């Protein structure tokens, strides 16, 4: 048992279905429910609260110093598992043994109070994450330096920009020194350079021999940090072991999911008054095609259906393309290129016309998002597969180098070379139009 940090044994968590909407949040509901229960009592009606297992018989071990990734779709139980291991919620059955001090980072800036200054919030947040005051005092300067908000440390955080806020919050979290660190997708915030800094810090943490559990949708992060990973599917462990194999399994699962009819998809988020019903990939003449071709014009058509008799103002329809490792490559959004108001009603479609598709050959995925007046209406991750056939993008007879299939985007560029020791520079030019 000596080198084990976490041992989960048959962890299960049971929820009543629709816990959020059907909960008796007011006394009246509760009384009404009781009353209905009474009347049904004699008749022996059906079970009124269908239930489901958010987690079912999860068993695994994490060794000390190991970095374990947890991947899976929305609703697969990842967050529930983290919440149980962080003791925020209790399992319905099963046990988990944890050896060592745990810090969990399910959110950046937990407990930040807007009226308090940066300095005060560092102490507050650190205390909430379980850091001793003495420890904070010792690391205070380091934390402030890491965050880069020195000049505003005595300003209330309500006057901070969102970027400063996040940097300060992460700086506190990054200086925790628990034996076990539990992280939930917190890296999804902040600008790219700060994300890089955070990733660096995470690597440092894992190298220092601490145990890390990390949940992410970003396979690049998971593959970069973890030796081992768990794939959760519908609350069960679908795969556990070597990270690359698990990530492959996840990609397979995505392909399976993306193959189903969009109409039948239930893993949607948002209000649902506007629904995406179909996505067609078409060539430049708007004929549907099975696959797009690198470098050719392509049209992506998103069909929608609005709730009957309603009109939705200020809509935004967008679609993003994810690569092999589920990384975001680029996004097409109606509001960015042409910020005229978009009103949706009834049924219809939006076409995105992409000249010279800048993607290498391979299997990609779409992620769709529709909103109206700033409210998310319909958001589906991995909504459909997107196949691209490789072609000669640069017109040089060369295809992309191996390893770049469905991984990264193509950009137009040229290169020049020069000799610095020669006074009479005669540049060698290569131009790609």
């Amino acid at each position, binding site marked *: 048992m*000596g*080198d084990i940090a976490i041992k989960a044994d048959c962890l299960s968590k049971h*929820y009543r279905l629709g*816990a959020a909407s059907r*909960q*008796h*949040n*007011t*006394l*009246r509901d*509760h009384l009404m429910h009781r009353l209905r229960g009474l009347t049904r009592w004699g008749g022996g009606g059906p079970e009124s609260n269908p239930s489901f297992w958010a987690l079912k018989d999860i068993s695994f071990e994490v060794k000390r110093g190991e970095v374990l990734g947890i991947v899976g779709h929305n609703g697969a139980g990842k967050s529930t598992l983290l*919440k*149980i*291991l*962080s*003791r*925020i*919620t*209790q*399992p*319905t*059955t*099963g*046990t*988990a*043994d*944890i*050896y*060592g*001090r*745990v810090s*969990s980072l*399910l*959110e950046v800036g*937990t*407990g930040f*109070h807007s*009226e*308090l200054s940066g300095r*005060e919030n560092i*102490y*507050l947040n650190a*205390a*909430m*994450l*379980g850091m*001793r*005051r003495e420890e904070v005092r010792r690391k205070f300067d380091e934390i402030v330096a890491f965050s880069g908000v020195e000049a505003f440390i005595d300003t*209330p955080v309500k006057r901070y920009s969102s970027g400063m806020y996040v940097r300060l919050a992460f700086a506190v979290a990054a200086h925790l020194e628990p*034996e076990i660190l539990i992280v939930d997708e917190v890296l999804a915030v902040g600008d790219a350079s700060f994300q890089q800094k955070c990733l660096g810090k995470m690597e440092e943490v894992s190298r220092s021999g601490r145990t890390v559990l990390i949940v992410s949708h970003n396979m690049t992060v998971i593959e970069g940090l973890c030796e081992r990973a768990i794939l959760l599917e519908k609350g069960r462990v679908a795969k556990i072991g070597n990270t690359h194999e698990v990530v492959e399994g996840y990609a397979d699962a995505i392909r399976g999911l993306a193959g189903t009819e969009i109409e039948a998809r239930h893993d949607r988020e948002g209000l649902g008054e506007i629904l995406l019903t179909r996505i067609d990939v078409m060539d430049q003449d708007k004929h549907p095609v099975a696959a797009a071709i690198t470098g050719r014009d392509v049209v992506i058509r998103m069909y929608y259906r609005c709730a009957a008799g309603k009109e939705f103002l200020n809509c935004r329809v967008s679609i993003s393309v994810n690569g092999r490792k589920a990384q975001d490559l680029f996004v097409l959004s109606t509001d960015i290129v042409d910020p005229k108001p978009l009103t949706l009603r009834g049924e219809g479609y939006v076409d995105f016309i992409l000249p010279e598709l800048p993607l290498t050959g391979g299997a990609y995925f779409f992620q769709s998002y529709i909103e109206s007046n700033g409210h998310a209406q319909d958001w589906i991750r991995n909504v459909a597969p997107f196949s691209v056939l490789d072609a000669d993008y640069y017109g040089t007879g060369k295809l992309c180098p191996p390893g770049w299939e469905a991984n990264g985007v193509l950009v137009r560029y040229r290169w020049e070379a020069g000799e610095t020791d020669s006074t009479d520079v005669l540049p060698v030019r290569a131009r790609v139009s």
Partner: protein
Amino acid sequence: MRGDEITMSALTADQRPLSTLPHVRIQPARGLLDLDLAALWQYRELIHILVWRDVTVRYKQTLLGVAWAMFQPVATMLIFTVVFSVMGKIPSDGFPYPVFLYAGLLPWFYVSQALSRGGTSLVGEAPLISKVYFPRLILPLSATIAPLVDLALAFVAFLGLMAWFGIFPTWRMLSLPLFAALAATITLAAGLWISALYVKYRDVGHILPMFIQLWMFVSPILYPVSKVPESWRALYAMNPVVSVVEGFRWALIPGFQVDFTMFFPSLAVVCVVFVGGLIYFRSMERTFADVI
């Protein structure tokens, strides 16, 4: 051989701190009352910092700052004196009404404030509860402690009032912390119930202010206990705030008479409500994060 030795020693060095690593077993809770006082103690710094936060935030960006803690009860005292004493002719057992009233308002301001803050402490911190672990008892507990600071400040104002009326404190004043502790226990006991119920039933948000106002009228704050009909006294004494208010007056006003037998029913009620509150809170605590 050498290599083996090195790995062996590295292993033992690596494993040495293991015995000292804290071990936590996560499992479905069972048992009625598992207080886990050890966890509370471990998180004492969090209690401290939450109390500090509540006190600080309350008077941030105000001109008068902490002076509000004195101004509020003094202003209330002045208004109530005009309404109830000057116009309403409510007796005060022969003591100057402002002194009599203020000695009652002092603990009442604390109770009402701690109750409304304690009662909403869980729902008000919903994001915390769903994102980070700590013994949930800390929230109502620190919400009960924080207004003690306001109580102390309001007490300073009372000293001024005593000087104005030329009343000299007696040794009885030393017993004040005892009655303040009683007030805190009562509020915590009620706060445990209210905060846990609030998580499940949002009706509590509407009921609470009404409940606090009602409680004030069934406590001897504006009027003396002697005005309560003899036959109602036994029932009246069940209200623990009666003991607190009487205790405060006894400690602060020289010559104030208190029937200490009235304390026993109060204390019994406090004990029952407190223990019941702890059991209820602990049993609900398991689902806070799922329901909130």
